[in-house]
């Protein structure tokens, strides 16, 4: 059975490499054309109607098809996966508290943008502003990114000097701390009651909003996918810059990197801050789409789901992690009848992928080679555990 899986897997990998090689063999303008077609398809997706694939039943909206809503979730999860990939895949730091940054992003638009939030009420009182006043959406976006970056640095500063597995547990604790603070600090976050009336690009949710309403998710998806494309572009530039090479060096051998003049702590902190900002951006979109958030939406299981997206997809490879994110967001919605079992399936998928092919579904070529090296070393020196 396992042999069968292995050989099927090998065939799949061969196919992937062939596709990759062909793509690289194309001329520059052919590639550009291909990319443009793909981007156009991404924008067209919510209008697509393929029975079975795009028909996702829901009772909450008219027509009963939540395809665009699910696409929106896929898009913000891809954003999360890209951000976490910078931390886990490129810099090699396991972050189990990513939901914390997601939550900070969501809470920053809620706290500053909603008229129901204690923070906005306090500002209104202090400065004698009208009760309808709140920070505009675009400024909230800025606040969300700055706040999450700062929190990434604050968490990273004391903890990034630790060994990798300690770091994982500390970040897990961080995610829980954020959730518990959101629940207990009622004066700041309304606690378990949550915050409603979170604004979108057109301001607070109301029936007058023409584009970004509560019902139609398509504009939200287009907004999210635009952010995704911008971020993919930026992160790709970063990955291929000096910073990106420094991350890979630190991941593969921290001491060797330090000897070569790459100061590991600095680059790890950068990875943490950038990853955090992407998580925050994703949380920001989640908050303003939902228009309502409460602490129960940010539990630790989601952090583990995020890590699963990255490792199942193929950590270090942006296409891989995006695929992982889309799969893990889409499949549970498609197979609603088995929704009870989805965490079980995620857990099993993580274990199986780690044991059978730790480099993930679409591996980064570099990472795959690294793992192979280690396995070869193990065969040479069997006593080494």
């Amino acid at each position, binding site marked *: 059975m396992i042999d069968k899986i292995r050989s099927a897997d090998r065939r799949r990998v061969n196919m992937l490499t062939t596709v990759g090689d062909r793509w690289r063999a194309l001329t520059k303008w052919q590639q550009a054309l291909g990319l443009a077609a793909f981007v156009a398809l991404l924008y067209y997706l919510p209008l697509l109607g393929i029975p079975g694939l795009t028909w996702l039943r829901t009772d909450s909206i008219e027509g009963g098809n939540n395809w665009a809503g699910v696409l929106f979730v896929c898009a913000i999860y891809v954003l999360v996966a890209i951000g976490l990939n910078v931390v886990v895949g490129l810099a090699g730091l*396991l972050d189990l508290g990513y939901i914390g940054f997601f939550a900070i992003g969501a809470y920053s638009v809620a706290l500053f943008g909603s008229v129901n939030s204690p923070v906005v009420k306090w500002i209104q009182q202090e400065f004698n502003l009208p009760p309808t006043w709140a920070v505009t959406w675009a400024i909230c976006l800025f606040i969300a990114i700055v706040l999450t970056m700062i929190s990434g640095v604050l968490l990273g500063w004391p903890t990034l000097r630790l060994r990798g*597995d300690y770091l994982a547990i500390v970040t897990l604790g961080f995610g829980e701390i954020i959730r518990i603070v959101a629940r207990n600090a009622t004066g700041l976050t309304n606690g378990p009651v949550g915050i409603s009336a979170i604004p979108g690009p057109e301001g607070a949710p109301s029936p007058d909003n023409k584009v970004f309403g509560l019902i139609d998710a398509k504009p939200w998806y287009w907004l999210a996918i635009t952010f995704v494309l911008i971020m993919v572009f930026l992160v790709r530039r970063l990955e291929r810059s000096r910073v990106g090479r420094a991350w890979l060096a630190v991941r593969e051998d921290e001491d060797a990197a330090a000897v070569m003049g790459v100061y590991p702590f600095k680059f790890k902190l950068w990875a943490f801050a950038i990853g955090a900002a992407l998580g925050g951006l994703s949380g920001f979109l989640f908050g303003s789409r939902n228009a309502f958030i409460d602490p129960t939406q940010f539990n630790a299981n989601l952090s583990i789901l995020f890590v699963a997206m990255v490792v199942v997809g193929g950590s270090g490879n942006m296409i891989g992690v995006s695929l992982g994110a889309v799969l893990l967001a889409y499949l549970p919605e498609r197979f609603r009848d088995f929704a009870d079992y989805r965490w079980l399936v995620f*857990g099993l998928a993580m274990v199986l992928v780690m*044991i059978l092919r730790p480099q993930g579904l679409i591996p980064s070529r570099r990472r795959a080679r690294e793992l192979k090296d280690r396995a070869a070393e193990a065969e040479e020196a069997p006593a080494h555990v």
Partner: protein
Amino acid sequence: MHFDELIGHLGQHTVDGLSKGAIYALIALGYTLVYGVLRLINFAHSEVFMVGTFAVLILWNQLGVENNPPVGQAILFLVLGLLVAAAASGGTALALERIAYRPLRRKNAPPLIFLITAIGLSLVFVELFGQVLPKLLGGVLPEAFGRPRQIVGMPTIIQQETLFTIGNTAITNIQLIVFVAAVAMMALLDWFINRTRYGRGVRAVAQNPETAALMGVNQERVIMLIFVLGGIMAGAAALLWSMRFGFTQNSIGFVLGLKAFTAAVLGGIGNLRGALLGGLFLGIVEVYGATLFASNWEDVIAFVVLIVVLMFRPTGLLGESLGRARA
């Protein structure tokens, strides 16, 4: 801030903290043993504990235990519970090692891959006991698995009573039993690791795997042994938990495991006596903190302690060692 409350009942809070910390310490041993030998965090250890509580629950249900049985029966139920929980938890830990960790060790996988596997396993166990078993066994064992993901109550084996009071500090029978039993289990383990032939093997592998192998220590057997020992300690913790709190749930392992891990790091991971010290210390800090602020901040305190310890003294209070210091 309730300083008056804390100072006024300092003794009481200390006793509460000690009996709480004793359970953390028992679970922490599992992390410490595995870390001491393999330098890996067995993240799924919290689920080993959870399986133990379910084993106790099922046993007591099958025996038809009712609230407040006579003393003789109560002791019998507790001893049986200890055996069953230790067997279930030890077996689970061993299965984890064989099925998941061993193939990874063969491939010399990086530590993060172990950790991710362990997280996946932990999720699988939580879901098994929260979803799959209730569906499969809901009819056979309705008391244990009747309601998926819900808290399941257990019969009270020992009625909580105040045994004696020192000043304004009341010590109850349950607190005393939990504390004494936990310390006794730990003393037993300490003796086993430091005084027996098998223990010597464990220390040898912890110190230097290659040399230990050359001296004829069977490394695989040592690794199995530490997983089983950690599992047995988690089983004992599961029994004490069931006796003291009288409930379980598929998700109790998560926070408890994090706290036990904190305790292990606090005392110096890889150090058996450190686990005891760290567990007790964390228990006390938590109760003090919960009194000072409010009880809903309790979990935050543990994580803050963890971050502070790792920042200022990452080797813990007693330093990392299993066999290293006193080999």
